[in-house]
């Protein structure tokens, strides 16, 4: 899957706890993205990164933060998890910029009780 791994693959947590999801790539791609997938909504962009330490918000960024301290890793943090953040989270990368397809990781299924 294009050299992208996500960890953990599954996580169950309780409301109010912090959670960090990790995306790791071996492709040296510049652009990285975090999406969430929910039935009836498709995939929605949470945050993206256009370089080390450079990030911006997507359409559903409330309650999420991200960090990228090195090219290969992009972390997504839920500061205080809520049940509405139960979802499947996908990381994607794009090395060529505009007009080019994104490559997706295998996903992390997060359940917030």
């Amino acid at each position, binding site marked *: *899957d294009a050299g*992208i791994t996500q960890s953990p693959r599954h996580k169950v947590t309780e409301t109010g706890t912090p959670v960090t999801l990790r995306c790791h790539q071996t492709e040296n791609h*510049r*652009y990285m993205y975090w999406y969430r997938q929910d039935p*009836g*909504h*498709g*995939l*929605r*962009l949470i945050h*993206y990164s*256009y370089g080390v330490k*450079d990030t*911006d918000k*997507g359409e559903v960024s409330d309650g999420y933060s991200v960090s990228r301290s090195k090219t290969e890793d992009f972390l997504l943090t839920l500061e205080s998890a809520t049940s509405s953040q139960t979802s499947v989270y*996908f990381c*994607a990368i*794009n090395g060529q*910029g*505009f*007009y*080019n*397809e*994104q*490559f*997706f*990781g*295998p*996903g992390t299924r997060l359940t917030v009780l």
Partner: protein
Amino acid sequence: AQSVAQPEDQVNVAEGNPLTVKCTYSVSGNPYLFWYVQYPNRGLQFLLKYITGDNLVKGSYGFEAEFNKSQTSFHLKKPSALVSDSALYFCAVSSVSNFGNEKLTFGTGTRLTIIP
């Protein structure tokens, strides 16, 4: 704001028959359109894209898509369906962020089931 609509949540097709998965879009300016497929418990995989040029775009696994500017549509097609084509299909439209990279807006997805 740009958007994509996939009007059918579910499409059922008999094996060997042609299939169509519908997508319409709304953008200001030129549309840049993509189709992705998701198999169970997997991430999305790129199928094909339209940037410019021929209205009929060919992609992976025998799929093709027809771009129709007047109808603002980008329907996914295949002449003869296989059981292995059963999956969730997403249409997406691209825009450029303030930092020069692409951002995708996805449709809600269409579940395609091929009946043996």
